[in-house]
């Protein structure tokens, strides 16, 4: 019994890490622009496909590339290109709408998401792609728990990225600029902060982290299809809201909570088909009783 529990905790941590990585992107963009970037789930999907492309290319080289090299290569390649994609989307689709009503930006984000999904579908066809295994699969047995190197890698790499991001936001000048913009948008440009550049960088960082999530997700659940970003994206979005949307540490916490909800719903309830129901009901209840999420600051309204 305890073994099953431990095993499920590990699975939940693995899945939660991926959710947390994607939720960070929602939280960062919301924090700085107060805009829900509904295209983020699809940016994650593109990241997963880009890392697949890089991995297939590196594995197909005439000489036998060592697996860690392939992994790091795919990670860096997809993080870089996905960051570029995020910046491009922001530049072309969101920046012209800075002064427009906020819902226009949200509709645009929905449109961008649909575009990315269907463009990938039209380019690559509907058949799912299989992700090659890059990490040795033989499990370790520790206290009766089965632990694969992949699980360890996912949990540790995600944690490392989150720590780095937290440091970036709390300790660097760029992070200070981001926090300043989310604190008071109109005043910040007067202090000499290049707002547009900071927003671009926010999108770059958020998208790169989503790309890392895409690679890790592809390794753990090795079937990719163009619509994978929808469900994962929504779940990560709930994670961001549960933690208090716009709050970075809240998004991390929310990601792990959602991972636990998804893994433990089939354990406690008869069928896994209830997981959406459980997750969204929890979300609804949370929002009714604590409208700003777990770590969100309460909203004050100036009259």
């Amino acid at each position, binding site marked *: 019994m305890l073994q099953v529990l431990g095993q499920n905790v590990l699975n939940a941590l693995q899945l939660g890490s991926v959710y947390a990585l994607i939720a960070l992107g929602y939280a960062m963009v919301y924090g700085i622009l107060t805009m829900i970037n509904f295209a983020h789930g699809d940016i994650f999907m593109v990241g997963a496909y880009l890392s697949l492309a890089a991995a297939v290319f590196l594995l197909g080289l005439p000489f036998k590339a060592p697996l860690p090299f392939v992994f790091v290569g795919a990670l860096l390649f997809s993080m870089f290109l996905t960051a570029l994609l995020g910046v491009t989307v922001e530049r072309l689709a969101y920046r012209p709408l800075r002064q*427009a009503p906020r819902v226009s930006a949200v509709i645009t984000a929905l449109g961008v998401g649909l*575009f990315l999904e269907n463009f990938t*579908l039209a380019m690559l066809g509907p058949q799912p792609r299989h992700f090659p295994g890059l990490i040795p699969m033989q499990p370790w047995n520790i206290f009766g728990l089965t632990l694969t190197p992949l699980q360890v890698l996912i949990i540790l790499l995600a944690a490392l990225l989150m720590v780095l991001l937290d440091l970036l936001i709390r300790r660097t000048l760029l992070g200070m600029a981001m926090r300043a913009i989310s604190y008071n948008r109109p005043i910040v440009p007067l202090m000499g902060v290049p707002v547009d550049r900071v927003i671009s960088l926010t999108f770059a960082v958020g998208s790169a982290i989503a790309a890392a999530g895409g690679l890790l997700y592809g390794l753990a659940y090795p079937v990719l299809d163009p619509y994978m970003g929808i469900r994962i994206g929504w779940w990560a979005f709930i994670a961001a809201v549960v933690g208090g*949307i716009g709050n970075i540490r809240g998004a991390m916490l929310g990601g792990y909570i959602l991972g636990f909800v998804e893994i433990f719903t089939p354990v406690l309830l008869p069928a896994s*088909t209830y997981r959406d*129901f459980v997750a969204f009901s929890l979300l609804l209840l949370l929002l009714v009783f604590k409208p700003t999420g777990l770590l969100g600051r309460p909203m004050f309204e100036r009259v």
Partner: protein
Amino acid sequence: MAAVMPQRRYLTWGSITLLLALSWVLPESGLLNPYVVQILMYVGINMILTLALNLVNGYMGEFSVGHAGFMAVGAYMSSILTVWVIPPALSFWAFPAVLVAGGLAAAATGLVVAFPSFRTRGDYLAIVTLAFNMIVKSVLENLEILGGPRGFLGMPRLTSLPWVTAWVLLTLYLCRNLVYSNFGRGLMAIREDEVAANLTSVDTRKIKMYAFLISAFFTGVAGGLFAHLLQFINPRSFSILKSTDMLVMVYLGGIGSLTGSLLGATIFTLLLELLRPLGLWRWVVGPLLLVLLMIFRPRGIMGLKESKWFIPRFGAGSRRS
């Protein structure tokens, strides 16, 4: 002024009668082929959906992303009635009542969203509606008695062009009267500034409640029409994508405009049909057009403007408050 009034009234009633007559004659006589009639019915259903959603998103200024949930409730409720309850011989005559029942069921679930709207607003209310949509879909997927994820079928094809036309006209009429009544002014006051509305004795809770219920009602009716046109429904047809379609129609046509709603629904439906030859690329071009429209016309085609036709003119002495 007084001389204009009756003329306009005759014109209105004349065009309504003509429209209804045409909607009956054209398909019956075979002048329009069944494919075109089908598209017209979709246009009509989408018009009802758009008008209903515009009430909440356009006039009240909240952001509902979950109206497909209401549509699902209306569709399933009316289908259950026609398949299991009403004997087939009566189903044609009972159809309006069935649709109303579907709408009422949808309105009842509207309470789930209306109550949180008292406390949460803006993005968080949008998320509540989103969660509502997902919950409805998930519940339907887990109800084996309704076919679960495989869907529900066996409804007779009761939806016809005259019915759709009649419901569009009814929805339009009621929405117009609502929007230009005291209630409508309350709605717009909430959109502009909820706190100020409250201070100027607008009963914001009551108005929000009614707005959600009425909007959910008509969305449910449209769901019933949709179910009895397609004769097959499954939970996936009421996913968040359906809600997205509705949002696109509202914001394409323009928020807070009845004319915009009608235009948005028409253009969206026809455009998707016209792009059909593109195959898979249809869904690439469509969203791209949407993004471009939002960039160049962020308030939609008719944003906050109205065709004169829909604005009631009150003669001297008949000024209502």
